[in-house]
């Protein structure tokens, strides 16, 4: 594809955000779609062996599910949850070849324009969840880190197990940008400070106000269904307008710019030069594999724990 930059590259810029998200006659695979009852639909992230890390297919299945719930006039509430031991571990860090998952595979060799298009397409997905016109509830247990936390944040409500782990491994939450929006507009220093912590439990997150409620894990499903049941009593149009009002007010405060800053910070992170003593994802992955990288990252994130031996 001619790019205007005088060289060829595998362009992803024109790919549509909704590509492969048709729900009619769909075989759901990496995310499943079911209905709890007439009014409550449920999307279950379904790569338990990969801790529900996001593949392209999982995004596509999730969006097909949202589409289907949107088109179903009976559905008023959508629950999102994860199969297996957790809600989700975020992006697939193994960079499968040919997939969008960041950090993307070196074979894609994207230019900055290309990468920006990719980022924009990826981040627009968050806004699609945010602006979904029906009530969305994230039912969170176990890990809910990185992109999975963003997905949960974009849902209207989060109910989590007390021992759930929300955050980003090895970083403060602060570069996340788009997940700032649960604390937007920043209404307390407590919440702001909470976002500088790299990981919080469900219990702590409820106290900081990032999520709505934390319950023991064996009560999580029951509690979520209870909320869904109650919220599904409200007529769809009334919910849609109320949600438009709240989200529109947030747009006025600059949420749109926060979303955009997330594209840019991702783009910038792609060009980070690691210092010799820092854990370099690309180098560690190449030399020691993904698990080796994760071990190195854990050691660097928790100095003095003895892990370094």
């Amino acid at each position, binding site marked *: 594809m001619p790019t205007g930059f005088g060289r060829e590259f595998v362009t992803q810029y024109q790919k549509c955000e909704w590509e492969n998200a048709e729900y009619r006659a769909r075989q759901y695979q990496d995310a499943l779609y079911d209905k709890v009852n007439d009014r409550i639909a449920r999307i279950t992230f379904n790569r338990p062996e990969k801790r529900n890390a996001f593949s392209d297919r999982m995004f596509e299945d999730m969006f097909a599910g949202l589409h289907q719930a949107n088109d179903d006039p009976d559905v008023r509430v959508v629950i999102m949850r994860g199969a297996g031991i957790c809600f989700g571990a975020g992006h697939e860090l193994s960079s499968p070849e040919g997939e969008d998952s960041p950090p993307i595979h070196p074979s894609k060799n994207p230019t900055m324009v290309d990468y920006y298009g990719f980022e924009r397409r990826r981040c627009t997905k968050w806004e699609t969840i945010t602006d979904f016109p029906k*009530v969305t509830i994230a039912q969170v247990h176990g890990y809910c880190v990185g992109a999975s936390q963003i997905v949960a944040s974009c849902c*209207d*409500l*989060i109910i989590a197990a007390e021992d759930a782990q929300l955050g980003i491994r090895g970083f403060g939450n602060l570069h996340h940008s788009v997940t700032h*929006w*649960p*604390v*937007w*507009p920043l*209404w*307390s220093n407590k*919440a702001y400070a909470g976002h500088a912590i790299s990981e919080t439990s469900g219990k702590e997150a409820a106290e900081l*106000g*990032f*999520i*709505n*409620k934390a319950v023991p894990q064996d009560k999580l499903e029951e*509690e979520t269904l*209870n*909320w869904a049941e*109650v*919220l599904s*009593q*409200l*007529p*769809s*149009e*009334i*919910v849609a*307008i*109320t*949600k*438009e*009002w*709240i989200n*529109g*007010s*947030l747009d*006025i*405060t*600059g949420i749109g710019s926060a979303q955009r800053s997330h594209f840019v910070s991702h783009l910038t992170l792609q060009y980070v030069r690691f210092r010799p003593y820092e854990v370099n994802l690309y180098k560690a992955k190449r030399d020691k594999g993904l698990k080796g990288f994760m071990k190195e990252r854990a050691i660097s994130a928790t100095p003095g724990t003895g892990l370094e031996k």
Partner: protein
Amino acid sequence: MSYKNIIYEKKDGIGYITLNRPEKLNAINDAVLDELDAAFAAAEPDLEVKVVVVKGAGQAFSVGQDLSGVETSEVLLDPREPISTKRQLEAERRRNRRWEYIFNLAKPTIAQVHGYCLGYGCHLAMVCDMTIACEDALFGDPSIRMGLLSGMPLWIWLIGIKKTKELLYSGRYITAAEAEQFGLINKAVPKDKLEEEVFRLAKGISLLPGDGLANCKDGINSVMEARGLGEAWRFTNELQLVMQQHSREPGEFDFFEVRDKKGLKAAIKDRDAPFKGFP
């Protein structure tokens, strides 16, 4: 102005505005709004008043809009009534300008809350600079259960996104302790300490220079305006208008129909029935 539905008095540099329809739990009808306007307009230029305390007589601060349909053409537009878009927009603007006026009053304001503090009552407490409540107070906005928009943009500014959505989607009420935790109010105190606590706060403020207070308040509010609050009031007007036009689904609860057929109490009971036992 002679006040019938509120009491306005001045004492020790403190102005007191007391909602005074105790037999109706201080439900706010058109007349209450008119008198509130007059009282705030009287307090603002009055050099003897340094700080204004807003409270309710009887068992509650206020249960919110008077839903009876009697003398409520300003506080509660009946969606069944044919009304031009222009007139409705005017009504919405008047309403939000009133809240904005109180919010920006050039003197500190304190809401002293006990019992129910719902709907318009809660909005009135929210536009005050500070809220002190006793432990038995209940806060919330059940508008959505009647197919109405809450219409108070400050929710998002005060308690954040997740809690706003939780409260406004469900219409559920929260206790003073929860309200304090979310930042909706400044402090929850035992019932017998409420008056004393508010007096101490008001007295302390009344010792400060009035010009300095007005300036300080303007600085804080202008930060909220810079974060888009000014535009949010306007946006709210428009969405109120949209909400009035929503179409009813078959079997959908119609508060106004039920009220006219079975009476106000039965309508409120029917309204809240599906939400019983909600956390």
